[in-house]
């Protein structure tokens, strides 16, 4: 049983890393693109 759980933990670490990257990238791109758009409007 320990070996089965172990197998999920190992793959799970990569899955976790992937989710962190996807979420961080999504949030940052939304925030920063919105901020850039606001700055562009303000300068106009």
């Amino acid at each position, binding site marked *: *049983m*320990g*070996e*089965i*759980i*172990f*197998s*999920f*933990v*190992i*793959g*799970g*670490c*990569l*899955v*976790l*890393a*992937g*989710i*962190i*990257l*996807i979420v*961080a*990238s*999504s949030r*940052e*791109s939304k925030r*920063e*693109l919105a901020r*850039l758009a606001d700055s562009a409007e303000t300068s106009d």
Partner: protein
Amino acid sequence: MTLFIVGVIVSFSIFLIVGLLVGRTVKSADDYYVTGRNATTLFLAGTLFVSMLSVNGFTGDQGWVYSGNLTSLVLLNAICAIGYIVGPLVFGRYLRRTRCRTMPEYFGMRFSDLRNRRVAGVITIVSITAYLLATYTGVSILLQELTGLPFWACVMMVWAASTGFTFYAGSKGVIVTDLIMFLVFMGGSVFVCYFIIQAQGGLSELMPNLIANPYKPEGLLNYHGNIPGTGADSAFGSIMYSVTLGIVWMVVFAVSPWQAGRNLMAKNEHVILRAGAICAILTVMYLLFLNMASISVLNINPHLEDPQRVLIWASINVVPPLLGVLLLSGIMAAGLSSDSTFLSVIGFSATTDLVKREFKSDKHLLSSSRKIMLGVGVIALILTLMGLAGVRIIAWFASEVIASSWLVAGVGSVVSKKLSSTGARWAMMSGFISFMITRSLVGLGIQPFAALFVNFLHPFFIGVAISLLFAILGSRLHPITAAEKEFYDKMMVIPASEVVAKEYATDRKFGYLLVAAGVVTTTLLLFGWALPFNGYI
């Protein structure tokens, strides 16, 4: 054996020629230390992975696997792989934004305090000298195995080659040879591993052969590995050892000079994250494949006297000679590349981080750095000749020093607005000192400390806890200044040129690639090992 000696000489020669050619293009200190800050994803991934793997990944680590701790290392690698993503997100890319050349310089700039730079410089030099020792030892062992020359002669040759390379090539030469070696040993090792696994009957026979092998180490195929191999006396202790070291290495990937420091070379922040994703996948999947080759050798020769030579022995005795030469030459050059990286970091740190000094020109700065490198290289040479410990032990000690000393100050410098110069400096010093004391007590086997400082009381965790305490205390007693706040605010701004929707979309594709790699890894482990081992299929 002659073919292997020729292969080594060719490897050395290519290495030095590349260094000399690239060295001609080095015009400034920026070129020398951070390759002009334009490394692409593949270059950065190559140098990151080679720097991490170095010689230890092919010798010390494989010796541990051969001795029964395959699952221990696989778990450790999986945990630390996360550091390749988290590290850049909470530290690495901010380091790059400051345009510093070294990490001690970062601590000095971030906290507007030269004392922080000096403390970080001392820790860098201690830690990297230890790592240099490990790589000198590892490459010398390899050279000794190939040539039959005495150990001391091999150490001298390794020292001379790496020092000469470092003098002329700098990080530009290192990143080019790192990429060449990354491709050579990646490609070569895949074929070598294939031949090793085939030599004992093929992949489908690996598990049945190991199960039937009376000489296999105790616990090899169990989830906890060989318990005594981790210094533990229970399955929980064995797992905790892997978890602790996995966290240590995750922190190393996040804040160490030889990993996070590579981010200084990146073309932009998206490159850092993508290179990190590639390295995370390689750390789990490629190393798992390499480890399988090492345990395959148990079915061919289960009585190796020195387990850390397992892949070297297999490259000479099991696989076709040309492939063996390719792999061993690649490992040799990877080790020499690491030596050069460490020497150049030590040289620059000692020259500019410890003492406030004005240099007339970049040429003068580089000249002073080279003199320091020569001196430190000689010290490392003498310590290597003394044969203090195995490659894995020294390398892991070096990583623990950095992780313990810099985790709080490094990550805190980004995520905390309240961490002051005094807090960061006290955190680094207290983390370093408390780790060195507790680690020495454990290393020397002094009771009751050696039995007490394990699992959650591992010297790493003690160092981090004390570091955090002093960070809070120092920041309360001496709060941040206006200059620190200004620098922090500036550091938080993402360069406008990097805010491109298409680039973020590509970053997310690498994220999906990581998820897919995780699913594939779990599937392979389940059907290739866990289910058959437990008799379910």
